[in-house]
């Protein structure tokens, strides 16, 4: 067997390296979902996690996440400087993955890549389609702003997106 026979499969190539939190079922997932956690069969103790506890946790986490990724106000009591660092860290993580997925954009933007990505990602959560959708949206934003030339890329569905499509579509 040669090394050429051992290329990583499509799925692994597409999703890129490392701890990329991939492929969310997107906004609206909650609507058809058992949010408040009626305990399933054999989960008697699960009833302890009642709807109030889940609702409060959902509210708190959504408020914090909005502050971190969607330009929302910092919830009361948090260290705002720490949240700013977390926001930058999340954007840096997205930027790193997009840079690896789209070396062409990295080349086209050169030293402006980080600033351009920060401008794109500021207040804009990572799209539900994962890092490839993020890369595509970034490229579209650059085209729309006239920063790069070229035609919009075809929208290739990822296997994970296909798997979870029934939740979003």
């Amino acid at each position, binding site marked *: 067997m040669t090394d050429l026979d051992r290329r990583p499969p499509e799925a692994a190539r597409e999703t890129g390296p490392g701890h990329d939190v991939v492929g969310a*079922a997107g906004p609206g997932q909650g609507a058809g979902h058992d949010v408040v956690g009626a305990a399933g069969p054999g989960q008697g103790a699960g009833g302890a996690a009642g709807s109030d506890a*889940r609702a409060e946790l959902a509210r708190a986490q959504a408020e914090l996440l909005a502050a971190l990724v969607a330009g929302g106000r910092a919830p009361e009591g948090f260290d705002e400087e720490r949240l700013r660092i977390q926001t930058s860290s999340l954007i840096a993580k997205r930027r790193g993955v997009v840079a690896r997925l789209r070396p062409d954009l990295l080349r086209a933007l050169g030293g402006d890549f980080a600033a351009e990505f920060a401008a794109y990602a500021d207040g804009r959560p990572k799209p539900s389609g994962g890092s490839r959708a993020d890369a595509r949206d970034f490229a579209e934003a650059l085209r729309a702003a006239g920063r790069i030339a070229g035609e919009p890329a075809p929208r290739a569905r990822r296997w994970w997106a296909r798997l979870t499509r029934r939740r979003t579509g």
Partner: protein
Amino acid sequence: MGERAAVEAAVTEAEEAAVDEPLGVGIGWRPEIDLTVERLEGVDFVEVIAENVRPDRLPESLRVLRARGVPVIPHGVGLGVGGAEPPDPDRLAHLAACAQALGAPLVSEHLAFVRAGGMEAGHLLPVPRTREALRVVVDNVRRAQDALEVPLALENVAALFGWPQDEMTEAEFLGGLVEATGVKLLVDVANLYTNEVNLGLRAVDALDVLPLSELAYVHVAGGHAHGGVWHDTHTDHVPDEVLAILSELCARVDPPGVLLEWDADYPSDESLQSELDRIRKAMVRD
């Protein structure tokens, strides 16, 4: 017997041997370093990011490793078991299918939330450590356990901030989860170090509180300091301080496994080999 059939047969054999045996020292398998991982000496087990593989189309490299009897652990990053919603059945089914396809002795995930209010964080965020939240996460973990045929291990995360509502430490919260659900622990000593630097939470205090008898394995990784903040990037050499925490852990318990995470900016094979050797040295009890 064709090569594929031979691999299948060896996988089945190795599957039976993998359960209940110590894992040893390992490295995170990534597609970019697949051949390197195969070539490195003394790789006793590997981890694969579960969201990056299809159980029905496993990368050839993982099949080769399995044929050699190397355990492969699916490591999830997108479940968000610390979220407000019960874990997504599709994601759980994927983890279960990965475990089955790989003949994995367990599955690991994180004590974190990764989405809320229809938004994706893109990373692992700390859960508010309140008694109320613990009840929700206990329920989530039980649901995950019900969907998996192998044990689940949960990992402590690196945090850049704490919740003002926190009533307990992460170690106490994980201890509560272990007690209520029997979930296993994946202790990331680099994350303990990160929290020590960034939040002033002493790693040894966490080691004192964590129920280490339930330890499944350990993560070790490098990162870098930026503006007085430690970023756990998994892209650099493991600092001596992280290895010192590993040694502290090994003074308390003989860890079933210790795994190096390296996610990008990959160094030479020799460099990775030397990182694994440093880990082995740090594990030796005085």
